[in-house]
């Protein structure tokens, strides 16, 4: 039944949903890129701020959603990421595409999917948010009409995502057979009453893991990642790398912690294998990449693997570490793709590592930012990435999952090589032969400003993390 009482709890989601419709109608009346961009920015900001008006505590909104500190934290995170991506898209789209207002409808809709996913407490709402997120992503990935690679990656993502979501659905159906419920609390109750996990339930859980693993690009299901990152436009790749993965990770935490699915030894082992493979393969395959977007794709596979370590610790501290690391990962990835966008020109994106050769001598400030980002992703001290990894490690060692901890350390070591290779290229001598005639897309405002802000955030979290940690500590224990 519809009631107006719960509506203030889902205010951010309502704002984004309404914004998408308003943008659509405004395009129908008159096209104006500047207005559309500004309006989208405002609605993301409003969504982030409106979280302050949600009362504290954990509330259920019908049986579909639960609004708690954890959900609110991720709501703010996703809204901020959406804000940054919108800001970085403006000049990029102006340079590369003529009709670019629809881009913002799609961006708002897919953010809406992510925003509802992080508060989902029911398989129906999870599936719907997942599809709202990915159906708009199909169109976003293939958005640049002149770019054959974009369309190709769009169709690839479409087919693979559709297959993976049918796997997910089949899994959900099997879980439904076993427990008779589609909401997470009902599933937990059904499980605890039956005691042992049955074969059907395990099969269902395995198929759900396939679907979720695909979205998060964990290793056996990662093959789409480099192609889609390379083919999609850089802002969209940033979106796929951050918002889409982060939201699914948030639901993964909710799903397995609230139903207790990880208590089963087999499920835990499967996740361990996935995590180990993601960390090793992601970093290993990144070593040979010349294309910076493919490199970031493989690196993101590795980072999601790191996150799984904290997920598998099944402690409050593990959850705090995962949340902290996810914030750091968001910041780093957004800044990395932001730099790619900055360096792109009308003809194409600055895809290859060689495009960054001698960047330090041309744009020292940008090179400094990109260096910091790379060091943070690699996990060098004084950056946020280092502290994030430290928390992951402590979360792992506390419960003694040594295999995962050791693999984390080893694969971070492998990771150092390719991150430092990018840094080294930037400081190498100027390459005189290719004096690119096209000016870069990036402008001081807003690109330079946003990048600087993200850069400062990375340093801030790296040197003085307690401000963020205090917030995370408040929200992280709520979910259990």
């Amino acid at each position, binding site marked *: 039944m519809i009631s107006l009482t719960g509506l203030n709890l889902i205010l951010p989601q309502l704002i984004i949903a309404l914004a998408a419709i308003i943008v659509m109608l405004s395009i129908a009346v008159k096209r104006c890129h500047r207005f559309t961009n500004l309006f989208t920015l405002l609605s993301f900001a409003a969504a982030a701020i409106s979280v302050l008006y949600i009362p504290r505590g954990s509330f259920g909104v019908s049986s579909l959603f639960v609004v708690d500190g954890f959900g609110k934290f991720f709501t703010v995170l996703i809204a901020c990421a959406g804000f940054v991506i919108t800001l970085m898209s403006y000049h990029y789209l102006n340079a590369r595409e003529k009709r670019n207002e629809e881009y913002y409808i799609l961006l708002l809709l897919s953010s809406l999917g992510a925003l509802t996913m992080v508060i989902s407490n029911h398989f*129906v709402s999870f599936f719907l948010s997942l599809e709202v997120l990915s159906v708009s992503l199909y169109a976003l990935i293939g958005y640049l009409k002149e770019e*054959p690679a974009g*369309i*190709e990656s769009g169709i690839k993502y479409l087919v693979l995502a559709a*297959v993976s979501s*049918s796997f997910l659905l*089949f899994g959900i159906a099997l879980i439904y057979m076993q427990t*008779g419920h589609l909401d997470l609390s009902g599933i937990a109750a059904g499980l605890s009453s039956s005691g042992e996990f049955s074969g059907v339930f395990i099969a269902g859980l395995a198929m759900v893991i396939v679907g979720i693993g695909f979205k998060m690009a964990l290793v056996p299901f990662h093959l789409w990642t480099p192609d889609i990152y390379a083919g999609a436009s850089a802002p969209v790749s940033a979106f796929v790398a951050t918002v889409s993965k982060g939201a699914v990770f948030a639901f993964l935490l909710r799903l397995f912690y609230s139903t207790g699915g990880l208590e089963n030894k087999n499920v835990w082992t499967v996740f361990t294998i996935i995590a180990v493979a993601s960390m090793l393969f992601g970093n290993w395959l990144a070593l040979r990449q010349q294309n910076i977007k*493919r490199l970031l794709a493989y690196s993101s596979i590795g980072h999601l693997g790191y996150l799984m370590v904290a997920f598998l610790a099944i402690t409050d501290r593990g959850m705090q570490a995962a949340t902290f690391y996810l914030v750091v990962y968001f910041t780093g990835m957004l800044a990395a793709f932001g730099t790619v966008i900055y360096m792109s020109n009308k003809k194409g994106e600055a895809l290859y590592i060689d495009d960054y050769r001698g960047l330090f001598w041309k744009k020292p400030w940008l090179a400094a930012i990109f260096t910091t980002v790379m060091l943070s992703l690699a996990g060098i001290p004084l950056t946020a990435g280092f502290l994030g990894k430290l928390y992951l490690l402590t979360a792992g060692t506390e419960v003694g999952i040594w295999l995962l901890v050791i693999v984390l350390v080893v694969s971070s070591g492998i990771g150092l090589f390719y991150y430092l290779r990018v840094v080294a290229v930037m400081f190498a001598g100027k390459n005189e032969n290719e004096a690119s005639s096209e000016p870069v897309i990036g402008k001081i405002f807003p690109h330079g400003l946003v990048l600087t802000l993200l850069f400062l955030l990375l340093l801030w979290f790296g040197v003085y993390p307690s401000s963020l940690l205090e917030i995370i500590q408040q929200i992280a224990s709520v979910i259990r």
Partner: protein
Amino acid sequence: MPVNYYIFLSLALFAIGIVGVLIRRNAITFFMCIEIMLNAVNLLLVAFSKMHHAKQAATLATAGIDGQIFVFFIMVVAAAEVSVGLAIIVMLFRNVHSVNVNFLNRLKH
């Protein structure tokens, strides 16, 4: 009829869908196969919904209703997926004048 029959039928349909996606090379056929897979799930959900309803109808009149509602959403989502997919295929066709996915190898390095 025991619920096993439904499970076997939908497993068969699901497997047909997977095999189709794996071996066919036509983008339109992909969508048909995905549709088969989704409908296999629909069948399963409806069967389970009826099963749970028959089991618990005495205590809870609305038992098993969520499975049926879920089916509606899956149908709508499948339609949305297909229409976005068709739109992308139209764009693909304008580019390469074919819907054969073997042309999609630009991104390999």
